[in-house]
């Protein structure tokens, strides 16, 4: 599936929720499912420090695709990370560089990406894009 198709899928999933409580309960569920972040990667070098919460981001480059692993100390941010990884991980640098993230707005969780929240998510997306640009340049792909 393309990045846009996955985003459509997420919007569809969220469309069944009638209030914020259901949405947040789902985010909490997603946070529990988010796995694969190894303890050895929980290091300062991978830390994106927000004013409110912290995010760790680890990256791998395999077969021309970038794979992201991430974690956070807050449950709700972790839930958001799970969604972002679903959309952006295991993609070519080209796809990531060109990706427009519109699903967050559509599912009504934009506040999590607003700069005032300073929860590290905006910086995480920026970091993901920077990795993509770096790999794109490095391998000329």
């Amino acid at each position, binding site marked *: 599936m393309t990045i846009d198709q996955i985003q459509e899928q997420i919007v569809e999933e969220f469309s069944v929720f009638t209030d*914020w*409580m259901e949405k*947040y309960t789902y985010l909490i569920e997603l946070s529990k499912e988010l796995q694969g972040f190894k303890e050895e990667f929980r290091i300062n070098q991978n830390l994106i420090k927000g004013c*409110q919460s*912290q995010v760790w981001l680890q990256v791998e480059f395999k077969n021309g695709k970038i794979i992201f692993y991430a974690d956070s100390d807050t*449950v*709700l*941010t972790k839930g958001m990370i799970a969604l972002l990884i679903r959309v952006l991980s295991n993609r070519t640098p080209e796809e990531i560089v060109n990706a427009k993230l519109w699903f967050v707005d559509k599912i009504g969780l934009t*506040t999590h990406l607003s700069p005032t929240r300073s*929860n590290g998510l905006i910086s995480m997306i920026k970091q993901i894009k920077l990795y993509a640009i770096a790999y794109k340049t490095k391998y000329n792909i």
Partner: protein
Amino acid sequence: MIDIQAIRKDFPLLQQKIYNRPVVYFDNAATTQKPQIVINTINEYYQKYNSNIHRGVHFLSEKTTEAYENARQIIKNYINASFQHEVIFTSGTTESINLVAFSFGEKYIKQDDEVIISQLEHHSNIVPWQMMCERKGAKIKVIPATYNGDLDIAALERLFSDKTKIVCVNHVSNSLGIINPIEKIIQISHSHNVPVLIDGAQGIQHQPVDVNKLDCDFYAFSGHKIYGPTGIGVLYGKEKWLNEMPPYKSGGNMIKTVTFEKTIYNDLPFKYEAGTSNFIGAIGLGAAIKYIENIGKQNIFDYEEMLLHYVSEKISKVPGIRIYGTSDNKICVISFLIENIHHFDTGIMLDKMDIAVRTGNHCNQPTMKFYGIEGTVRASLSFYNTIEEIDYFVESLLQVKKIFA
């Protein structure tokens, strides 16, 4: 006694629904809401009288100048300063402290001198002193705190040396709400001939302040935390210091005569008010203080104390709650965490339930480090909050706990 229903009607924002119900505004330590009279005053001055102060001879300028100086008089009376010219208008507590850190530092602090601050200061009462100390080669010494959030006053005595030049502490700590024994701190410091600056950002709106009785050398506060507009604040300073210190910013209004060779500074308070000051902000702050005086500040403080007892009692029943700053000497601030729930998660959930609280380190990283945590949730109440809001807040906390269980 205050009529809480009548008071709530004075604050238009409190009537406003955020998601489903009128906001429960428990973020008063960050900024307070404005009564209608303050909003009206600001409006009126922009609509009818706007004109630069101390400049023109025309009707409008005189009218605004008079209102600006009248605001200074209101504040002088409210804090019981000896003279009107001891009240300097600044942009807020941060600017007030920066002013003293620079001007006092320039005049009196040299290599190896010492400045005493406390463990529980806001960043704005740490960093300006650090910058000055770096410039001068001076050092900062820190009054330690006890686990319940009180300062260790016995330790203060031991921090003094013949190098100590100034002591700077907050009246009330912003992240915990603990009231410091400033009378005692001032008394001890003066016995060593050392002046004291009080950061009153969290004090002036919840505690009586009489600068004459306190005998403090400087008292700084912000307008927006005492129901006035943003961008206006006050530095009270004893005449002697204000006269001796050099100004820290320069420009128009602060001068008497200017030639290319030499400038003679203006008299107090104008010496410290370079440029066009936020005069309508000052007039708005005057209106806010008048509003408080009309209700009666003791009535306000008594009601807030009742709220503190009520919320402390209620919240202690929430299973797994940990309160930071458990001293009895506190204003109506509850800084807390619930078991393993991150402060950010709690804050987001409370927001969805129309409750506004502050989460994070509250510009107070050394305090968080002291407790070995990243941050807290801080509920800070004011005299327009109610028992019913506290009940709803505690019910909501129980719900948050359930959601993250």
